[in-house]
């Protein structure tokens, strides 16, 4: 899909064209759903979130700017922000004091209804996170997995915002590198 095709698609979505909404769903629902299952506690929560996200995408479709981002980035950003808002509304995030004592893999405490395959996958993710330096590990758990803003994490850890940003950015890069090397093996 070219930028222009994506832009036209979003204009059709904004105009309420059902086929365009269906096309948008077919392209992005799988990725959005995976993120929802990672962030939100239950399958029902994830499905509700996906429904709300597509309504939100329709409402904001004419704000999509192809100069600024690819459509996938825009969609995932809207989706992720919505999920984080949802987490905050439902207070489903663990208190940050709990995170201090959280052991690897206990993220599942907050994410019931997972299949054995998912459990294994999540455990792998937590194992990879466990191999990161302490600060990167803590920041990734809080920001990436639990939806705290970087400013919140900075306040919680009483560390400069710049340090938190760098730790998160480096931690995410390291996780991706680990994953790529695993795939190459």
């Amino acid at each position, binding site marked *: 899909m070219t*930028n222009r095709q994506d*832009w*036209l698609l979003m204009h059709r979505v*904004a*105009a*309420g064209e*059902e086929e365009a*909404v*269906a096309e948008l*769903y*077919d392209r992005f*629902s*799988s*990725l959005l*759903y*995976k993120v929802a*299952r*990672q962030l939100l506690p239950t399958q029902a929560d994830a*499905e509700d979130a*996906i*429904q*709300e996200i*597509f*309504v939100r995408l*329709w*409402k*904001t*479709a*004419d*704000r999509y700017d*192809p*100069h*600024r*981002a*690819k459509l*996938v*980035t825009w969609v*995932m*950003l809207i989706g*992720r*922000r919505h999920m*984080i808002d949802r987490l905050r509304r439902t207070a489903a995030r663990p208190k940050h004091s709990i995170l201090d004592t959280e052991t690897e893999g206990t993220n599942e405490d907050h994410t019931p209804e997972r*299949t054995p395959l*998912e459990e294994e*996958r999540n455990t792998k*993710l937590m194992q*990879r996170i466990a191999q990161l330096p302490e600060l990167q590990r803590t920041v990734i758990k809080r920001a*990436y997995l639990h939806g705290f*803003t*970087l400013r919140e994490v900075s306040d919680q850890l009483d560390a400069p915002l*710049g340090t938190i*940003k*760098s730790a*998160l*950015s480096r931690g995410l*890069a390291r996780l*991706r590198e680990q*994953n*790529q090397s695993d*795939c190459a093996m």
Partner: protein
Amino acid sequence: MTSETTMTRQELLELAALDAFGLLDEYEADSYTRCFQDAPVGVQEELIQLQAQLVSDDSLLPKEEPRPQLRQRVLEAVAQAIDEETSNLKPLAMIGKPRNSMTELIGQFPLSRSGQFWRAAAFALAGMVVVIAYFWSNAYHSSIEITKAALLEDMRGQLKEYIDPNFEDFVSNPYATVIPLMPVDTTAHASIGLWLNDRSDEALLVAIGLPDPAEEYTLSVQSESGKTVLGTLNQHGALAALRLSDINTNLLRNATIQITNSLGQVLYKST
């Protein structure tokens, strides 16, 4: 680390990753956006590609797929939201109907000179509604979108005829962005937009409802280095337009764009 004017490529790349995941707060996201816009085109492309690559990477995500039933549920929810919005907009949509009927009626009769004048005036007013709807849409995107689409469908031909034959292509180009020009005097009521295309280095100014059809209006740009006149607007009744090519769109974006009358008074400017 994130000084807005001195952000390096490396810092931008680092923030791009956080921005893509929605991990920046509103202030930082705005700051990143401003720095992104000031970055060279090559770096912008790099950042866009990086963000798309990061968010598309599902290697750290669960493998679970949505249930097939979810598709229908989502489509129904969106359709319902659209229906609710449409019913809220009904009173607004009715505004267009009498004007359309009048346009059709006028089209059936040969017109006198004064009749042609009034027809042009009617077209100008109709066009004004479209442009106003466009500006509104920046603030109230979703609620205006449906009405805007319906109006555009009816008015497309008129706008092409009176503003610019390529008006539609220009403003619908995905690389075109619009800067509204606001009145200096709050009693002024023209709708004015300057569309900029960064890729083709072209601009199109469209003004509807300028007060005096006989006046000579000038488009100029006021920057730190002084004032530069870009051209005189071509007028047709209440409609006016000016097409510019080989311009520095970044310069226009970062300067104040003005419309002045023949006395040099600034009537409208970008904010």
